[in-house]
């Protein structure tokens, strides 16, 4: 990553906040730190393992500074707002917001997930499925299918409440191990940088399609069953809502099929 960005964020955070880079996207860079932005140290307890996420949108040199500032503010605010709204919806799991400085494009979030055993990587859905796709593992382990069903439920809850994710890849689904049951994983949706409030079936259909493609491209041998489990979980949310839910579900799944067909056509031409 460009030294400029590191210098910029280090200057902003000061030397009191040590940071470790964990991800660099087109839009934002993500760091972890063990320093809380405002809670006094002795109040957090001396759990030295505690980590926080800092998501920083660096200024873009190619944009006019005023436009850049307002875009950064707008996007940081939009992501914060969506996370705040989703936090209040029952059973939806997203990271908690610790702080948001929209003027500098910086959001602090609760750190979710853990390192998977045997160096299988960070516990997002992609690594989790890979772990179970390895030789000697059972790709259709009930734990896997249950987790995928829960992933579907999270997406279902999101859509039922008229929110769309906008970039629903298997890396943007982080699995958090249940403290009471190590074989149970609760999916959390992260990265609402492209999220929106939307009641449009098209947006929701596209969300489902993006997730389906993500599973297909990295776990192709098992994708059919995996995607089925996701759709079952997704549907269960709508089926819980009676007549109105069923109607919306049918509409949505029809659109999903349309989006899929369009995608297939495009790939045949392209």
């Amino acid at each position, binding site marked *: 990553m460009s030294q400029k960005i590191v210098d910029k964020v280090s200057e902003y955070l000061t030397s009191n906040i040590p940071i470790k880079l964990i991800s660099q996207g087109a839009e934002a860079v993500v760091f972890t730190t063990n320093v809380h932005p405002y809670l006094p140290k002795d*109040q957090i307890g001396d759990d030295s393992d505690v980590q926080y996420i800092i998501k920083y949108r660096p200024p873009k040199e190619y944009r006019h500074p005023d436009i850049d500032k307002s875009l950064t503010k707008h996007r940081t605010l939009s992501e914060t707002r969506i996370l705040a709204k989703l936090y209040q919806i029952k059973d939806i799991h997203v990271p908690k917001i610790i702080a948001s400085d929209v003027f500098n494009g910086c959001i602090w979030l609760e750190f979710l997930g853990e390192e998977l055993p045997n160096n299988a990587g960070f516990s997002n859905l992609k690594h989790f499925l890979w772990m179970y796709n390895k030789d000697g593992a059972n790709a259709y382990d009930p734990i896997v299918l249950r987790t995928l069903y829960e992933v579907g439920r999270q997406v279902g809850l999101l859509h039922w409440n008229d929110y769309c994710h906008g970039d629903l890849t298997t890396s943007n689904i982080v699995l958090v191990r249940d403290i009471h049951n190590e074989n149970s994983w609760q999916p959390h949706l992260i990265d609402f940088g492209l999220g929106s409030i939307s009641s449009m079936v098209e947006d929701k259909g596209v969300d489902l399609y993006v997730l389906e493609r993500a599973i297909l491209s990295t776990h192709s041998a098992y994708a059919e069953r995996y995607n089925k489990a996701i759709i079952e979980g997704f549907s269960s949310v709508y089926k819980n809502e009676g007549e109105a839910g069923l109607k919306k579900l049918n509409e949505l799944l029809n659109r999903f099929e349309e989006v899929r067909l369009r995608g297939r056509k495009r790939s045949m031409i392209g």
Partner: protein
Amino acid sequence: MVSTILPQFPKFQVNVSLFHDVQNSEDIRLQVAELPFAFVDASVIVSQEQLFAAVYRVLTDLTYNKLRTKTIHSECLLALSPTSNIGEAFNRFGIQQGSTDLVVLQIVEVGQESTESANDIVKGTEVEFNNDNLLHTYNEQTLRKIYKLDNSFQPKTTEGFSQALVNAIQLRGL
């Protein structure tokens, strides 16, 4: 008293005291404009997290944006509020005539600490400013109304409740 410096804002020291059984809230109220403190009614403070999130907001606004009120201490009351109406913020979060439990907050530049302490002003019992001591004084119903929390939002824990307030504090007026 809890005395702390936020890592991103090393130029400022933040002092917070909590008092129970306050007897002179009426007197304090009359001179509140001249005193270099923010006097907050403890019934609207759930957690340290809520208060310090507001302090963080004050210091980011001060450093990168602008203050909406005349002093850093009135800004603290505004920062606690989910709306940008200053009068409303004072009425809801500031010391009231009959306030018996008070959170006294002070933000000072390092090196400019005043000699006056909250103890010289407040007649009451000082207890440590921590979550346990706030537990018995906050009023969930009032807070739900102030922060306009939906009835469907029923967090299982005080921390869960506190988080919704932190969210509102980050987003006020933006």
